[in-house]
């Protein structure tokens, strides 16, 4: 329950208000939970929680979300401290109605956008495909992220802005191509000294050139220098940036889906409405893990999903300034029946939740054997060679050790080709198994080892070029364990 809290302080505060003495006018129906909590003022705070989502509302002025009252109420409820009621209280019913109205409006806007997109696509069919003309796709110009709300461009002005952006990006990236070539011509041996300052300058230049994706590649680059084999790593990173710049220059020659990948990697924004207008994928989505990362006083929450029926992977991003609550509607270990709209591309991952149909009780997600992951990733990288992160679920794997840690398929090896050199298993040793490396920077995954105990487990991981990073696993009770 407390996993829903935005931070530790809220957890503590929530326990403080979870005592029954603080509450009055409590009630719960299968849908909604509510109560009035005595606060410092004369009027009690009214808190309620929509249990189907979960969604929260409280009359207190807290900017934390969910606030301590909502959490305290949930704690009290989980301790059986809330009596069941036939009907929600009036003010609760009112809130539920408002929510329903909003959802309906959103749904009808969505339908309208979808219809518009269908018309647009139909109109484009008439034009010859693959010409070198300006991109006809509907890229909006508003911010990329949770707050985007403007409509897709229709008038002449946004078009001109988009053209301006194209020009800036093109100029910036060709400058970058020259800079990279210069680096390689002169040698990168001095990167340890001059690199960070150079990359900082490039990142700023790329922001000016309206290519935030490329800017991000450079701000992350200084981490490379901490590694022993930094020259090789740096060359690899430069090569991938070079590849992106070239791909942008020659977008017209690329298949359209790969063009989408290039544009999104560079950081061309795409309006939510445009994404939502694409055909949605309905599935029972397992929420297999999440991670919050802070950058420039902004916290990005990445939530990874995997569809039970389609087997598709998805990433839902949300942002909030430090100290403010992030979207908490997707909880690791739960399964939601929902429509997901994917951002376009040849290895689509990022998605928006277009519509939630409800939660499902489904247990641990199905997964793949370790042996099948490389094939899966080869496909992903063929679609998007810049992929640095991809969610995978492994099932029936055991932890193994080869100096570092592996997640391996149990059972004896057939003598397939492996790149680890000759087999030298002594007579008294356990037979070797074969599996995938974990990212060595995470150290020994003790919690995963504890849950597994050397027995097969299901583990959701983030694949990265440096190895797997475990996200969640499921224990003997089928309970999700965040790693």
């Amino acid at each position, binding site marked *: 329950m407390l996993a829903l809290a935005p931070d530790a302080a809220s957890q503590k505060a929530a326990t403080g208000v979870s005592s029954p003495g603080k509450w009055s006018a409590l009630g719960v129906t299968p849908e909604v939970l509510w109560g009035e909590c005595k606060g410092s003022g004369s009027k009690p705070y009214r808190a309620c929680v929509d249990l189907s989502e979960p969604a929260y509302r409280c009359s207190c002025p807290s900017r934390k979300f969910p606030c301590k009252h909502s959490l305290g109420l949930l704690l009290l409820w989980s301790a059986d401290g809330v009596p069941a009621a036939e009907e929600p209280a009036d003010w609760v019913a009112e809130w539920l109605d408002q929510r329903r109205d909003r959802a309906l409006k959103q749904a009808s806007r969505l339908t309208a956008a979808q219809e518009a997109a269908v018309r647009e696509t139909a109109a484009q069919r008439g034009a010859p495909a693959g010409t070198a003309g300006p991109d006809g796709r509907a890229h909006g110009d508003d911010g990329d992220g949770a707050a985007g709300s403007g409509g897709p461009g229709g008038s002449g002005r946004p078009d001109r802005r988009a053209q301006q952006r194209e020009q800036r990006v093109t100029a910036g990236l060709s400058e970058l191509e020259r800079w990279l070539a210069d680096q390689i011509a002169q040698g*990168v041996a001095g990167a340890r000294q001059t690199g960070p300052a150079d990359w900082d300058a490039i990142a700023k230049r790329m922001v000016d050139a309206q290519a935030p994706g490329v800017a991000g590649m450079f701000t992350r680059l200084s981490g490379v220098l901490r590694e022993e084999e930094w020259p090789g790593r740096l060359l690899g990173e430069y090569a991938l940036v070079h590849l992106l710049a070239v791909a942008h220059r020659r977008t017209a020659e690329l298949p359209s889906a790969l063009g989408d990948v290039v544009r999104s990697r560079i950081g061309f924004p795409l309006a939510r409405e445009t994404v939502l207008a694409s055909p949605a994928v309905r599935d029972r989505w397992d929420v297999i893990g999440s991670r919050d990362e802070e950058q420039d006083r902004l916290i990005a929450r990445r939530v990874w999903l995997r569809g039970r029926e389609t087997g598709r992977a998805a990433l839902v991003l949300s942002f909030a300034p430090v100290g403010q609550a992030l979207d908490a509607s997707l909880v690791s270990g739960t399964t939601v029946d929902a429509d997901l709209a994917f951002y376009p591309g040849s290895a689509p991952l990022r998605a928006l939740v277009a519509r939630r149909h409800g939660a499902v009780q489904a247990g641990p997600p199905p997964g793949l054997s370790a042996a099948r992951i490389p094939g899966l990733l080869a496909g992903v990288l063929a679609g998007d060679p810049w992929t640095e992160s991809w969610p995978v679920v492994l099932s029936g794997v055991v932890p193994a050790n080869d100096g570092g840690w592996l997640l391996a398929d149990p059972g004896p090896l057939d003598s397939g080709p492996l790149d680890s050199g*000759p087999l030298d298993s002594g007579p008294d040793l356990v037979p070797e198994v074969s599996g995938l490396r974990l990212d*060595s920077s995470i150290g020994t995954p003790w919690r995963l080892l504890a849950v597994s105990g050397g027995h097969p487990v299901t583990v959701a991981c983030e694949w990265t070029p440096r190895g797997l990073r475990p996200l969640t696993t499921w224990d003997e009770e089928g309970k999700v364990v965040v790693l």
Partner: protein
Amino acid sequence: MTTTRHDRDSATGTAEWEDLVSAALVGTDRRPLPGGPSVAPPVDLLEQAAVRVIRARAGQRPHRGRPLPPAPPETRPLVGRGAGDRLARILAGEQGRLLAEWLEIAAGSGVRVPARLVPRLLDLGARDQSIRAHLGVLAGTRGRWLAGLNPAWSYLQEEPTDGHAGSADVWEFGTSGDRRAFLAALRATDPAAARELLVAGWGKETPEDRAAFTQILAEGLTMADEPFLEDALDDRRREVRQAAADLLTRLPESRLGTRMAGRAARLLTRDGDRLRATAPQACDSTMERDGVRARPPSGTGNRGWWLQQVIAHTPLSFWTGHLGRSPAEITAMEVGDWAREVRMGWTRAAILQRDVLWARALIEVEPLTDLLAILPPAEQSRMAAEFVRRHPVDGQMIMMLGGIPRPWGVPLAKAVLEKIAATSTAQPWNASELARLAGERFDPSAYEQVARLRDLPEVHEVSATLRFRYDMARELAADGTTETRADTRAGGLAGGSAAGLAERRTDDGHGTAATETGGPLDEEDK
């Protein structure tokens, strides 16, 4: 295994890749691109590198490794889900100070904790010895399996598993923790048999075990143990000698007791209504053999230290005869020089010999927690309550209260609540310090009653903590296998709380007895 840490990207581990990296390091202006002439060498290099990097990432293949030997099956039931979730909350920082109590109650009911929480607990146990014995039970076989993988957790192998208490193999093959538990249990039922078992294999035990086993003989100590303990005074290990000497001071007829009395008689004498103390001039080897430490802690003078040590190791019963007065009279008497050393010697002796009469007398002079601990719980609570009423809150009071184990008796609970109310406005920091202790030490079923007492934030805090503990104990009691082990445990007091709650629960099924008009704070107050 022949694999190295550097073959991660197989296609980038090749000589061709190394050539590209070298060229990039020194620059294509200075070193030509491998593979022949080129129109734009830097661009060529970047393109070749891009192809190789992506090929390497897309072509990653499985590695070989050794699987871990599977952990053996668990022998204990998993703790209930509610209790397990609460433990996770405690470990995440919510009411973190209640961890020890949770572990103690849970270990008493013979369950194990969810595997996901074991690493965090073992980390805590590596820093905090006091919880290790509980972890020996609660971490289950998975815990031992993990401890075998991480040297920092290897202490767990020494802790009792509490799994084969009755089995005779334990003494032969058990962990040292199990063997200690076995010996303690045997000592409780058949003291002579325990001693004989110990004597039989004494020479083969490790020094650590010898010291621990000697201490176990404190239970059911009689003159029959004297010859064995007298021999142990010549042990190679100082801890063993010390433990034996400490035990022998509890036996006034022991040879050590007689020798110490002889020394003490010369050092402390009565002169009318006064006592006269003389400090020894030297600490000879016979004194050292009897447990007198020759080297004082830094800052303490040699002679005063020796005096204090001699008094501390003299059977207290000697003094009443020697000085012809009762303990209360003796402790009230004026001592000229060395007064402090004499008092500290008696205090240490009272604690070592667990002498209630002397403890009572000494508390009048100075209310030390260690002395209070010797008294029966009810008296302890009464005396501490008295002290709380009579004195302002200060560091000494907080320290004394901190030393009184839960559950606090009613008089103490009431006195502390009154003190909280009295200091809440003037000294909020003291009030909250008291509130913290009160929440941890009161009988948790009083939470509702406490909440109604006063509308103060500190009192609410006490009530919230009590409520947390109440729910905690109820969840753990609901796990079914509640054995009351209070009698076999060293503290004795601690197991009582959970067991009491379990009984209360069976009264009305919901543990709500405390919510009626009365409550634990009234019940026992007659």
